[in-house]
């Protein structure tokens, strides 16, 4: 799955984008976050306060309990501050 990061989540992880093989145990967004946190300290730091982080699957906002289904891209970012 393609994973993208934006704003301070991107800065903490240290990459904009990465392709990750997911174990079959990863079903929901929450599972995905749990998996990403195990990658290294940077990922763990980025998701430290995981309640704050917003998620999009294939460019649509979703909640943490959403199933990944056949989404090709997941994106993680802080609350939006545009406008």
């Amino acid at each position, binding site marked *: 799955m393609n994973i993208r990061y934006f704003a301070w989540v991107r800065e903490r992880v240290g990459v904009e984008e990465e392709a990750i093989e997911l174990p079959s145990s990863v079903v929901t967004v929450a599972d995905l976050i749990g998996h990403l946190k195990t990658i290294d300290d940077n990922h763990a730091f980025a998701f430290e306060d995981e309640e704050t982080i917003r998620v999009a699957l294939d*460019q649509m906002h979703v909640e943490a309990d959403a199933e990944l289904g056949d989404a090709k891209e997941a994106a993680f970012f802080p609350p939006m501050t*545009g*406008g």
Partner: protein
Amino acid sequence: MVVEATVRVQAEDFSAQSEMDTLTAGRRDVGALVSFTGLCRDEAGTLAALELEHYPGMAEAELDRIASDALKRWPLTGLTVVHRYGKIRPGEQIVLVVAASAHRRAAFEAADFLMDFLKTRAPFWKKEHFVSGKAETWVAAKADDDADAERWIAS
């Protein structure tokens, strides 16, 4: 008559007048035109620039979704949203919404609604660069903005 919103996400500056002109050109059924322009403030001289990051593709898609909601909710004759990204300096323009309708209430409400949801749902993030040279910081989302967006859910 199906009205389509115009949504653009771009680094370049925009002209409110030219977007307004596009919504009224050749028409005689537009009675009200409301524009909102968001500009970069210098925060009492402390801010050197804002750096606007966005999620390409999703930014346009989300603005399209918000604009479609507005078109369903109010009888508009036209709706335009332009949001910039990249480095923006104090006094420069960041975002534009123009809503056109036969009547003023629809145009006012649609523009107001669009800005509220754009603030809380469109994937843009602002980083502040300071005049003093102190470390850049990401702007924190405001609880006020969430409250503003929620006004439209009850009504």
